[in-house]
């Protein structure tokens, strides 16, 4: 919007070191150079720990670089952070909303903080409210908004004083597909209609594909820069689709392919497996017939990452020596389950059944009632009505020893942060009554299977995100449960961690473990045997991934995806019931 001759952001040779509490030095950024031109949308893409957040915090003047130069809007950020901060909008991963204030009060507060005049407010407020569709909720407490609405409010608060440059740090983490789509519409509107310059960091690769320019980061270094096409091209001639043998779930083929040295990446897609070969002429098991397809951004990204990092490690695993399979029986049965909180019905007559050895997915937007259903299944919350059976009993009423058959991984990391990795494992081994040789064996098993040995002495609160997830799973599997509950295990995880997670779940299912997983990554439904889609506490659709996909509208330019189907199902249900677009999270 200005005729500034210099780019909006210009950085050369930026380096930043951090010291962990143990005194260990971590390189967050290593010789990073990048430019972001005025106008348009640029993306910082990379797995967790790539340095995306550190880089954005440097640009916002919240940290200073150890080496290199960084100018933002033509100003050296190290010299004069204040005058940069006066002109940029910065939205951190967890935006500082005041949960006890209403939507309007939060907006007023940020307008006051930035000294926005009353006249300006008259002009911008209706625009912001209209854009974010928060108008009808102006009086609602921010703490009672759903995750997606909170992010929209955070964005609105960042935009109250019309910045010249907008820095967004992973704004869509933990946000369901519908809200994610709405957020993106707002961002694209800002870029196209208002000519705003936006830099967004993300680990969603489909989001990166929508940006004009991308900067791919890994381990504090820039791996590649350029328009998304240039990244996609890396996988040219290497992307294929493979069909699993009849009657076998795609995930089994996918897990096998991931372990194949000739394969860089594999994910289940539409009942088949999409794979990227290490090179165009690499050998892949002859038994599989390959159909060449156009590469997409994710393929190029994974190929790039694979080259840069040792990501080829297999996460296939085995539960232990006593695992047995007895498929066909009913592991979990839920009939007309209801849960009310006052007048609010969080779970509304939900029924489903899960067979032993199945991977069962609960899909739905934030506040759909997934977590509430989970808490009832695990005996943490009494049901208002209906019946539920887990391994044949209602865990809330059954003897405590019945819980021996169940493992539970909560949405939030919930192990003891002060205790070290090994101490956590020892504690949960004791909690599940393991002692003596058996206890030693199981802890050794967990350390080996989840590759935790190197970090054994680190307080678990200081573990990097991916390792926390592993530790949480290890703790839940120590006692070899028959049924494993995983609440949003991949929320906020990057593509690498998610592949690793699903590979583990696939191997566990092979051994007869029943896994019940909630997720709002729709493509992850492809790993499940069956899924249900929940919204507003009700089951909207139920079936195999193929059956769910059939709900998606016909599309000319691509095969219908799980996400298309999900959005179609939810929108149709909301039209029928005339429900508001968003609800507060339960």
């Amino acid at each position, binding site marked *: 919007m200005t005729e500034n001759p210099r780019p909006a952001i210009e950085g050369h040779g930026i380096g930043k070191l951090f010291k962990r509490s143990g005194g260990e030095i971590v390189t967050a950024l290593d010789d990073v150079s990048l430019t972001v031109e005025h106008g348009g949308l640029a993306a910082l893409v990379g797995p967790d720990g790539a340095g995306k957040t550190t880089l954005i915090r440097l640009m916002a003047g919240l940290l200073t670089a150890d080496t290199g130069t960084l100018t933002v809007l033509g100003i050296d950020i190290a010299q004069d952070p204040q005058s940069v901060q006066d002109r940029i909008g910065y939205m951190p991963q967890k935006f500082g909303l005041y949960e006890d204030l209403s939507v309007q009060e939060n907006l007023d507060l940020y307008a006051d903080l930035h000294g926005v005049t009353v006249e300006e407010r008259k002009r911008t407020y209706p625009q912001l409210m209209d854009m974010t569709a928060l108008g009808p909720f102006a009086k609602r407490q921010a703490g009672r908004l759903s995750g997606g609405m909170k992010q929209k409010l955070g964005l609105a608060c960042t935009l109250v004083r019309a910045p010249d440059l907008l820095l967004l740090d992973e704004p869509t983490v933990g946000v369901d597909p519908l809200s994610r789509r709405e957020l993106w519409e707002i961002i694209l509107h800002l870029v196209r209609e208002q000519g705003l310059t936006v830099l967004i960091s993300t680990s969603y690769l489909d989001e990166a594909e929508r940006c004009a320019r991308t900067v791919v980061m890994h381990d504090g270094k820039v791996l590649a820069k350029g328009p998304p096409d240039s990244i996609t091209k890396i996988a040219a001639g290497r992307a294929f689709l493979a069909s699993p043998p009849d009657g076998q779930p795609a995930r089994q083929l996918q897990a096998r392919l991931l372990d194949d040295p000739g394969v860089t990446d594999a994910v289940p897609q539409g009942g088949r497996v999409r794979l990227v070969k290490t090179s165009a002429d690499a050998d892949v098991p002859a038994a599989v017939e390959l159909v060449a397809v156009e590469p997409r951004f994710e393929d190029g990204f994974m190929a790039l990452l694979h080259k840069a990092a040792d990501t080829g490690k297999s996460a296939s695993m085995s539960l232990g020596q006593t695992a047995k399979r007895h498929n066909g029986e009913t592991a979990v049965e839920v009939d007309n389950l209801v849960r009310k909180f006052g007048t609010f019905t969080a779970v509304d007559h939900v029924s489903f059944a899960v067979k032993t050895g199945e991977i069962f997915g609960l899909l739905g937007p934030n506040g759909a009632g997934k977590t509430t259903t989970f*808490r009832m299944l*695990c*005996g*943490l*919350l*009494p049901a208002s009505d209906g019946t539920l059976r887990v391994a044949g009993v209602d*865990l809330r009423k059954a003897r*405590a*020893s019945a*819980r*021996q058959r*169940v*493992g*539970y991984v*909560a949405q*939030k*990391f*919930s*192990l*003891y*942060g*002060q*205790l*070290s990795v090994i*101490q956590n494992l*020892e*504690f*949960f*081994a*004791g*909690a*599940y*009554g393991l*002692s003596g040789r058996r206890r030693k064996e199981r802890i050794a098993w967990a350390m080996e299977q989840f590759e935790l040995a190197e970090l054994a002495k680190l*307080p678990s609160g200081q573990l990097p995100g991916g390792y926390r997830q592993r530790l949480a799973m290890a*703790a839940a599997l120590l006692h070899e449960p028959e049924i494993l509950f995983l609440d949003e295990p991949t929320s906020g995880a990057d593509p690498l961690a998610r592949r690793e997670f699903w590979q583990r779940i696939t191997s566990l299912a092979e051994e007869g473990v029943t896994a019940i997983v909630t997720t709002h990554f729709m493509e992850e439904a492809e790993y499940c045997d069956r899924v249900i889609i929940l919204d507003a506490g009700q089951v909207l659709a139920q079936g195999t991934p193929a059956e769910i996909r059939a709900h998606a509208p016909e599309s000319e330019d691509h095969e219908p995806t799980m996400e298309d189907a999900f959005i179609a199902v939810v929108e149709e249900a909301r039209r029928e019931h005339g429900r508001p677009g968003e609800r507060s999270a339960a």
Partner: protein
Amino acid sequence: MRDSLLRVASLVRKEVLALMRDPRSRVILFVPPLLQSFLFGYAATFDLNHAPYAVYDEDRSAASADLLARMDGSGVFERVATIQQSSDIARLIDDRDALLVLRIGPDFERKLSAGQQADIQLIADGRNSNTAGTAVSYVTAIVSGFNADWRAAHDMPDPPVTTSVRAWYNGNLETSWNMIPGLIGTITLLQVLMLTALSVAREREDGTFDQLLVTPIRPSEIMLGKALPSTVIGLIQATIILLVAQLWFKIPFAGSFVTLYAGLIPFVIASVGIGLFVSSLVANMQQAMLFSFILLMPFILLSGLATPIANMPDVFQWMTLIDPLRYALDITRRVYLEGAGLGQLIGDIWPMLLIGAITLPIAAWMFRNRLT
């Protein structure tokens, strides 16, 4: 049974590790009891020192000079003014220049010599009734000493009745002798209540409590796993204060340590019970803090630490019966100063055990059944 013990042992180990691995909580366990015992030991005293007083001596005789010399030499009072007219009295008291004014009438010596009753007037600042009362009783003591000596010197018969006061167990009626043994209970309650009230609340906030509830651990085992380490920590804190009383304030210990601890253990159990009960009710750490503060104030007021329970209205006296600190104060003071034996303390011990026996099971039940 073996499984159950194993689970409780895991829980206890986890609690101790979680506390000891965090440098901040290590400090919080041991420094505040030390600081608080010094603070209370020095700051909370009713003893008078250098209380300012003024003199309006209309007699100016040898007798009045003798009386005033006794006042000035007592160490308790310090003369800040000698006034010449009665109108100055009001000003001195109003401006808080003097805590009391001693007025000696014009015919003081003449009346004494004649064997008549000679009055002196004492005007005290009643705005702080405690201090004024103490000051007046000191003056009374000085005056009766003067009386006795005057009669002896002038060959007069002794007054028909004299009271001679002897305070037992605390000969000089020093406040610190009363206050510091009382602190063993008070500070321990404060610390234990905070520690336990926060413990479950923290786990609820961190989500670790859910993780506990999905394991085969039973609520009663969680309760034991929380109560055992908290009780030990409470006893350690009580010991720190006891050591301060012994080694720093050097208050003579009349009783037996075995008896003292036999009384302290049920007290700490009752405090842990109340703390866990609070913790099982609240949803987060903020509420836990608030609740414990709301409870602490009445517990301390009703305990008899500062004001005797016998002075309270009946209703409040009944309320003191559910205050574990009330019993703990009785035990610590009596064992400390009076050397009371275990048999004399049964009446204090069983109510505390009862408090523990009610609060702990309720807390355990609430762990699972509190609606979230």
